[in-house]
């Protein structure tokens, strides 16, 4: 075996190094130095992020007889996830200093890095075995992370719900894969695609397989009706975990979904899964919105909001081709910043006062104007209001979807657009509570931790800058179109 092919996996190796360093630091450093674990992890991860931007990283390469593939696109999506992870880790620093958490602080960072590693594999896998390994690596540690707040019952309940549904969904996914294997005799994406293409006709078994695979991966993306775990888990999990789940694992899932659907089942797009996806998108956006309308718990609220956002991300999958991929990546990037800004505020308030209900946010402007402002920017960005980045990402994802040109896609986009009205409604509810409500503020004035503010500044900069500074999207689109 040629071990040099490991060098194709530059980012994975980098991440493993980071993981090992954090692990060693956590294990062997004296106790007084452990206070800096979080910052060490953040620093190392930041280096890893920067490393991802080295030109050599984005060179195309494959390894293990094509089971693993890296190219500019995968490198880029991994970079996007890195950025998000850094922000999540910064946000987690304050939380990880809590008494109940502090003894297991190191583990948290290690688990995050591990799941990220799994996501790397999901993204780069071109063989279902590697994909499953990546998927499980990405989702099993999350269960432990969800259960991290041992002192809160919700955390346990969320973990149970998560692990049971996660395992069930991977069972469904693997069942689907076994059908695929039975039909095509291979687990390589390219070979499966070739076999399906060669087959020409479509069989019931293939349809079931496709549905199961969509279900299995859709679980990660929390597409309706595979989304039901989302709200409970988001609510129960510690806030940094929730934010991690809502952006990073969703982003990775979305990209993996795109790769699988197009590279494996591309041949049966219009036969098998185009309409499935249409139905899922409509359901996801609508049901996510309808549930989000009523939520009072901010984390649960953002859970449903993230469900409907996943629906918009899916529009990028339908578009596929250069524009769709770029729009999807851009959407994920913007979504990371917007959602993390929101979670940053939620986390800051939760850490300071323990309150997560929207009713408690009444009059936040009076006591904590900066937090309220950040939250408002996040909400506007999520709702797609210019000049914030969310507007651009929504616009581009719709534009890329419509590039397909069929009447059905116009209808689909129209439904999605009408749903933005509902989503605007509930995002504005938050703004209303913070800015307009005249009740006495519940949350007293407090100073958020330096780490929290730092993370929020990054997010605000992203929200404002990512859209107006066009080079981000232009660069993505250029990169995608040269890579494709």
């Amino acid at each position, binding site marked *: 075996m040629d071990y040099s092919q490991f060098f194709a996996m530059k980012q994975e190796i980098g991440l493993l190094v980071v993981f090992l360093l954090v692990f060693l630091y956590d294990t062997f450093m004296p106790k007084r130095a452990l206070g800096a674990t979080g910052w060490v992890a953040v620093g190392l991860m930041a280096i890893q992020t920067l490393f991802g931007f080295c030109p050599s990283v984005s060179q195309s390469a494959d390894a293990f007889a094509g089971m693993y593939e890296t190219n500019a696109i995968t490198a880029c999506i991994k970079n996007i996830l890195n950025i998000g992870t850094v922000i999540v880790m910064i946000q987690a620093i304050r939380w990880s200093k809590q008494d109940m958490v502090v003894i297991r602080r190191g583990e948290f960072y290690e688990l995050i890095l591990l799941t990220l590693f799994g996501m790397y594999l999901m993204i780069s896998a071109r063989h279902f075995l590697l994909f499953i390994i990546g998927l499980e690596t990405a989702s099993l540690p999350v269960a432990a992370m969800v259960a991290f707040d041992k002192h809160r019952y919700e955390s346990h309940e969320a973990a149970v719900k998560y692990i049971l549904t996660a395992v069930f969904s991977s069972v469904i996914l693997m069942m689907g894969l076994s059908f695929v294997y039975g039909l095509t005799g291979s687990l390589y994406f390219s070979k499966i695609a070739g076999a399906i293409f060669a087959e020409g006709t479509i069989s019931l078994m293939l349809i079931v397989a496709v549905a199961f695979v969509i279900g299995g991966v859709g679980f990660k993306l929390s597409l309706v009706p595979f989304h039901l775990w989302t709200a409970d888990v988001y609510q129960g999990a510690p806030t940094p975990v929730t934010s991690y789940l809502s952006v990073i694992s969703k982003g990775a899932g979305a990209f993996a979904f795109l790769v699988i659907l197009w590279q494996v089942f591309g041949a049966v797009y219009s036969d098998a899964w185009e309409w499935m996806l249409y139905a899922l998108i409509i359901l996801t956006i609508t049901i996510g919105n309808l549930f989000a309308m009523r939520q009072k718990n901010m984390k649960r609220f953002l859970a449903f909001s993230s469900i409907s956002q996943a629906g918009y991300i899916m529009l990028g999958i339908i578009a596929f081709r250069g524009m769709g991929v770029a729009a999807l990546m851009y959407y994920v990037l913007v979504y990371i910043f917007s959602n993390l800004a929101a979670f940053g505020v939620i986390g800051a308030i939760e850490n300071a006062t323990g309150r997560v209900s929207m009713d408690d946010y009444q009059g936040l402007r009076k006591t904590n104007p900066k937090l309220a402002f950040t939250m408002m920017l996040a909400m506007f960005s999520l709702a797609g209001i210019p000049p914030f980045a969310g507007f651009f990402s929504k616009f581009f994802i719709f534009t890329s979807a419509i590039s397909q040109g069929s009447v059905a896609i116009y209808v689909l*986009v*129209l439904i999605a657009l009408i749903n933005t009205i509902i989503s605007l409604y509930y995002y*504005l509810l938050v703004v209303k509570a913070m800015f307009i409500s005249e009740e006495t503020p519940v949350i007293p004035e407090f100073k958020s931790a330096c780490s929290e503010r730092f993370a929020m500044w990054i997010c605000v900069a992203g929200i404002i800058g990512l859209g107006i500074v066009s080079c981000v999207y232009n660069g993505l689109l250029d990169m995608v179109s040269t890579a494709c």
Partner: protein
Amino acid sequence: MFSNILIYFVVIPLLMLGLLAVSQNMKQIRAVAVTGSLALLGLSVYLLTDYLSLRAAGADAPMLYTDSWSWFAPLNINMAVGVDGISIAMLILSSVILLTGSFASWKINPHPKEFFLWLVLLSTGVFGFFISIDLFTMFMFYEVALIPMYLLIGVWGSGKKNYSAMKLTLMLMGGSAFLMLGLIGIYYNGGHTWNIVEIAQGNLIDPSWQNFLFPMTFVGFGVLGAMFPFHTWSPDGHASAPTAVSMLHAGVLMKLGGYGCFRVAIYLMPQAAEELAWIFLILTGISVVYGAFSACVQTDLKYINAYSSVSHCGLVLFAILMLNTTAMTGAIMQMLSHGLMTALFFALIGMIYGRTHTRDIREMGGLMKIMPCLAVCYVIAGMASLGLPGLSGFVAEMTIFIGSFEHTDTFHRVFTILACCSIVITAVYILRVVGKLLFGPVYDEHHLSLTDATWWERTSTFALIVCVAAIGCFPNFFEELIKFTFSPQIFAVIGMN
């Protein structure tokens, strides 16, 4: 980039935003607001004179001062600017109303700083919209202008402001949902460009697609233009909004609707406009009469004015749909005229409300005796609204009627006559208000101690009155301004007569 004069229409508001953000007290805030809006007004007036001299010197491009800076190059999105006479008229309107609005909110309370921040953000959107000739930036600025509305009404409004603010925002966003689809459709079916001039000159959109995209964009902008049956945000929204916001919203923002309908829906898709105009003619014709009738029985001053706006803005869209030069010229005039006089109305209503703390005409009376200056201004505004010659409403309405009647189709003519009826109904509700509110005996003894207008209020109202009268007395000036937009060459290019 900064060598183009137009970009300053966005730069100045942005500067104002920055300065407002660092200003410490009311004095500085006012100074920034007034200086900034004066600068904008000066800029737009300069632009006007310069534009006219350029035209006189023989510049014959449809848009002048055009410039384009690449933004999202792969999607062919540019920050493209350019103006013709209509845009300039709208720019002047916006800056006048921003200025007078600043004066009208001289004593805004609470949070003056934030109020002006949002107000200026809103006007950034407005100015940006009017200078853009790129559909994407146009749409972006359009939405920038919409959202501050929510907070402005929600925080500084009155009455059932939560409900109104939410309704207004959601309905307008609903409109922009259709609009966004329409614009993206135009991009794909109009030669993969967002540039209005290019699309219009090439008439690039396939007719069968036009039939689909025209209603999308027209309805999208029509919601903001208060087209029946999508007008219901207007009464509630205006009733709840603070003075300056009502002024800007009715005076300028609703014009975005009319302007957009013209600039996007009709300019780019003339064939569909010809084919489908009748549907929207019915709707806007209904708007005109229906709004006027509704206004007759309202008791809240702002509701009366909001319904009157429905009627007047309906006339704008109505005229645009007639697809001929005269009617469209009238539509532009009506936009200006309505913008100014409705801003005047809302300013006065705000001032009266600030004193009497009621807007119910049944609870007021004889204000002419108490606050003669405001009352006289109100009468003038009313006269402008009901189309008294010498004030702006008359020239606009007459141009519209004459232009609409040029259409030889009986259907169009019957609707024109129907629209003409609005002048009578307008007279009814205006005189009803004037009679109840200003004339007659003083209704409430407590009102006797109220004071007349202060200097900033006078500045605000007089400036608007001067503009209203100027348009009303010297309408020919418009012909010069608008001539080129509707010149035969352009109409030939976009397929209109």
